[in-house]
């Protein structure tokens, strides 16, 4: 039965679309690699980190403080990691033909992604430094901002897949978009784990 339903391209392994998608992800890795390199070089150059020695008197007078609060981002990190597990669960469900499981899994992942973005925006609002406040602020907002943009892109991706799932377009045999979506979400998650580690955890 399954042998009849599966299309020939599945027998050759990866489809063209999936291969192209993975190559696209490789280019994304290189993009983030460039941004990470800038951060590492900034830290290697710095006499102290955060580089409070570089703050001008105007910045100090304006109340700029180069510190981050780890509490909220830690919760956001936990949510994002959990969402990765949820979307993987959703993919396993459609592999078993469970449409409802797929829809619920995608919906919960999407909600968690939105919550992550909301928490990131709230975090931005309460920080006492901006993108122009030394290399510390510039790297922080650039790295987390581009990551946030990718979370947003991933959320849109999930939304499209969710709408297609609601239309019943996926089956146990045909669900490549779900796989691509979950791989993308894991990628965004892994980038965040690396970011959270270097921005918040690696000692000063």
């Amino acid at each position: 039965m399954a042998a009849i339903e599966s299309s020939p391209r599945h027998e050759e392994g990866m489809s063209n679309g999936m291969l192209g998608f993975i190559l696209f992800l490789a280019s994304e890795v290189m993009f983030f690699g460039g941004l990470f390199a800038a951060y590492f070089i900034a830290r290697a150059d710095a006499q102290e980190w955060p580089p409070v020695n570089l703050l001008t008197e105007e910045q100090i007078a304006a109340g700029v403080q180069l510190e981050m609060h780890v509490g909220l981002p830690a919760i956001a990190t936990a949510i994002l990691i959990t969402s990765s597990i949820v979307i993987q669960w959703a993919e396993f469900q459609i592999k078993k033909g469970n449409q409802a499981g797929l829809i619920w899994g995608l919906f919960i992942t999407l909600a968690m992604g939105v919550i992550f973005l909301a928490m990131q925006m709230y975090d931005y609002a309460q920080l006492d430094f901006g993108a122009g406040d030394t290399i510390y602020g510039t790297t922080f907002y650039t790295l987390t901002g581009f990551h946030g943009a990718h979370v947003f892109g991933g959320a849109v991706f999930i939304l499209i897949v969710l709408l297609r799932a609601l239309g019943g377009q996926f089956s146990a045999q045909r669900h490549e978009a779900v796989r691509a979506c979950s791989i993308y979400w894991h990628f965004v998650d892994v980038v965040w784990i690396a970011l959270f580690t270097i921005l918040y955890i690696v000692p000063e």
Partner: protein
Amino acid sequence: MATVAAPGTQAYARPALLDWLTTVDHKKLGILYLYFTMFFFAVGGILALLVRTQLAVADSSFVSNNAYNQIFTMHASAMLFLFIIPVWAGFGNYLVPLQIGAADMAFPRINALSFWLLPPAGILMFAGFLVEGGSANAGWTAYSPLAQQSGSGMDLWIISVIILGVSSTIGAANFMVTMFRMRAPGMTMFRMPIFCWTMLVTAVLQLLATPVLAAALTMLFIDRNFGGAFFDPNTGGNAILWQNIFWFYSHPAVYIMILPGMGIISEIIPVFSRKPLFGYKAFVFATMAIGGLGFSVWAHHMFTTGAVLLPFFSFMTFLIGVPTGVKIFNWLGTMWRGSITFTTPMLFGIGFVSMFLIGGINGMFSAVVPIDFAIHDTYFVVAHIHYVLFGGSVMAVFGGFYYWFPKIWGRKLNETLGKWHFGLMLIGFNLAFFPMHLLGLDGMPRRIATYSESGWEALNFASTVGSFLIGVSMIPFLIAVVAAFMRPKDQPDDPWEANTLEWGTTSPPPVYNFDELPEVRSERPLFDRRHPDLAGGGH
């Protein structure tokens, strides 16, 4: 081979203009790429002539200093980003599916997107001339802090190059999937035409290097517009960071600019030497080695910064000369004792080998650290880059045009005019760029708007005469093109008695490419078909 209209083709007939604007056919997109890039070759060439006019005499005031900075920046930007890099995508688009026996690229609509990103990017870049402060003027390398000081034309330039980068990145993924997954039966990886191999390695470089440039440009944009501190040492940034990230892209990018050219002449030279390419596999592995080593030599552009590990980058640069040298012997070995016919494509192929060799040798010369300290940022470097990119890449572009013109447009370019084109271009090229070696050794810095009377006048004047001779050499080419288009399509499938699959279909090929595919048992399927008694050799 008889052309049989596919059933139902009439149903898809559309007005010609709409058809060109909406096509997803790799051949039409390839032709659009070629038109687009040749237009910007002309624009970049006119800018080059402005540069040479300014430098023809000492103390010239033909253009202002700021205008000069804009002109040489836009000359390089047009030539590199709007001509050389996309022209290979043009040849690749047209030829790769045909050469591997496929009906189209793996993702035809993404392919159309890759092309249609180019015109807005070209317009954005040149729109810089209309804004206050003029176009980008910090050189195509856009070093910080110079790039921080330019007007808003610089921002347009940044956005334009990012868009071009997106085009080339998605195009690269498309080429890779096409070659990995769409090959005809019998077309193993090691039977792929050399041009395909060079496009494949180029695609890998584009896929992995271009996003890094996008990251660098993004940072520059943030620094310029949002008060960022990436490249400003006063706020904890690092100006050398720009150079590191920029060259991490731009050194692999010079292989992006030359490898497909090597591929083109590796198609031409065997056909007109009537021999298989000498050392097919060695050529393939040398191409891979250049691609791999290309990621480890970027800092040889930065020796004088004092911020890089000189012995490592010098050694790696010498090392990359080895696979490049292997290729020179591939070409020489192919011609050795061959029955050479000096057709126009072959002349451009031989021109490539000899001029690129000079460019390679003066490149190795520059890799010697103490010598580089002396000639860094002088005209010697300008000579080197033009010997590889004009003497190499541009020779290959024209060789490719003369060689595949019968296939793409069904007509042959006039051989006599082609030989005039080649001869004038070769003489003009050497007259324009060889004196730059001497100027560089004498210490003339690149990118200066003018110079005082100091003994540099004669060589500069000779260089200017040469550059205009290159301009004149385009006249026979244009006449040949116009004359060809005034004649009917009369070319047979395989006018050159060539080796690769694209010559196994009609000229030009039908929309669906092949009525029937020749059997592929070696890397020369058409040779095998012409000589069944000799078939089965090769790889």
